[in-house]
């Protein structure tokens, strides 16, 4: 079943168009990787999907009861968070804010959900630790747990492995794969095309060249072969 259908999307800011004529759809349980050069509009596309900004043209249809508040989002880290005094539990629990509704405080169910998601990502023992003192990989796990508190349906990940070392990167990828296997739709922006292609089911390439389709087709396409090189194991440099 299709969860998300984009037709002829035009992205950008007031008088700058970053991308045009983007048409693609995402099915429930899909794993879509969005790739493209810097400045191609990947993050803008994600912000548009999250309804943080309006598209300049075209339409986005959401299905499967997918409201803005039931999409989990893993943004890129901001400077503000670098020295923010917050415990891991506080950060994860804040993922439940869409269930606050008109309530002022988090319900028992929300707290339970936060605990379960910490367990799911193996960060239960970090609960009382300070977020700013964690390693990059641990911080990403915390933010992923927070995103999971907001959704059981769809995760939007904006460069989840940026700045992580190779070992932690592959741990992060298998974690995301595990969540996808559990039935959560994953839409991920990545610079690391070779690695993305290894895990993703579909690829959306935007920028100078446009491609949308399965990973197999992407490997054979002009855009894919150009960026992946032979066999898909070369890292390209941006």
């Amino acid at each position, binding site marked *: 079943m299709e969860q998300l259908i984009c037709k002829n999307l035009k992205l950008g800011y007031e008088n700058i168009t970053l991308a045009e004529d983007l048409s693609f759809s995402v099915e429930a349980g899909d794993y879509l990787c969005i790739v493209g050069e810097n400045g191609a509009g990947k993050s803008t596309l994600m*912000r548009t999907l*999250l*309804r*943080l900004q309006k598209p300049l043209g075209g339409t986005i249809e959401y299905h499967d009861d997918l*409201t*803005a*508040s039931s*999409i*989990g*989002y893993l*943004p890129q880290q*901001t*400077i*503000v*968070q670098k*020295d*923010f*005094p*917050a*415990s891991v539990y*506080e*950060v994860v629990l*804040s*993922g439940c*804010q*869409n269930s*606050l509704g008109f309530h*002022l*405080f*988090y319900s028992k169910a929300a707290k339970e959900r936060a605990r379960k998601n910490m367990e799911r990502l193996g960060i239960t023992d970090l609960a*009382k*630790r*300070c977020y700013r*003192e964690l390693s990059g990989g641990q911080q990403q796990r915390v933010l992923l747990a*927070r*995103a999971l508190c*907001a959704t059981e349906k769809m995760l*939007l990940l904006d460069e989840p492995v940026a700045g992580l070392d190779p070992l932690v990167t592959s741990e992060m990828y298998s974690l995301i794969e595990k969540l996808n296997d559990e039935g959560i739709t994953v839409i991920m922006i990545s610079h690391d095309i070779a690695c993305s292609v290894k895990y993703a089911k579909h690829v959306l390439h935007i920028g100078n060249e446009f491609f949308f389709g399965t990973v197999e087709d992407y490997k054979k396409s002009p855009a894919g072969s150009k960026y992946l090189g032979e066999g898909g194991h070369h890292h390209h440099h941006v």
Partner: protein
Amino acid sequence: MFDILIESLAYPFVRYALIVGVLIALCSSLLGVILVLKRFSYIGDGLSHVAFGAMAIAAVVGLADQMVLTLPITILCAILLLWSGQNAKIKGDAAIAMISVGALAFGYLLMNIFPTSSNVAGDVCSSLFGSMKILTLTKTEVVLCIVLSIVVVIAFVLLYNRFFAVTFDESFAKAVGTKTRLLNFVIATVIAVIIVLAMNLVGSLLVSALVIFPALSAMRIFKSFKSVTVFSAILSVFCAFTGIILSILFNTPVGSTIVITDIAAFVICSVIGKIRG
């Protein structure tokens, strides 16, 4: 020494000053945590200058209750500044510098062109640095201050979880449907209220010290948002109380005495933070 203290406390205006001082310190420290973490410390500073300008207008117009004018003007500016701060195209810090310096100059000019008393220099000095001695407040001002403080504290407690969410990660909060615009609007309004209240106590140039020091001190030692908030409130109240008492005992200006106490607390907290690693 204690004789002076007990003797002073017999006067109602001294007791009022203590009550008001403690309440203002409590409110400013609560919002201070958010302001510091959101990287908006400079907004507090800019707003206090705006409040100074507004106060000069109120004095010239001859308003009996100056807050009627200073409060709405400061709130309006707070909203404008927070708004522009979010828009990357307009340079937020430059806008604040412009507004705050402009308001300062405008206020001083007004107070000189239309002097309301024979001692303009003294008036200017006390609105910039707070009263020379213990502040004298009317009963209405005290009541207004108590009411506004209670409103601020209640608003903070009720919106605590949302404030945390919008401070830690505004994009995420917005993406999952939290009304970030409305919350920022509330934060801006509350900050403006606190600035106007605190200006009576420590003067407009020293207001931001009251807002940022307790938060920064708490952040040296504590590691969760809740503990930082709670400790910063306790510390701020303690420093304001101590500062006012010291100013009575040593006959010093109340505003700067409180600020010096806050700075001393910051140094102590920094040392403790270093030791604990």
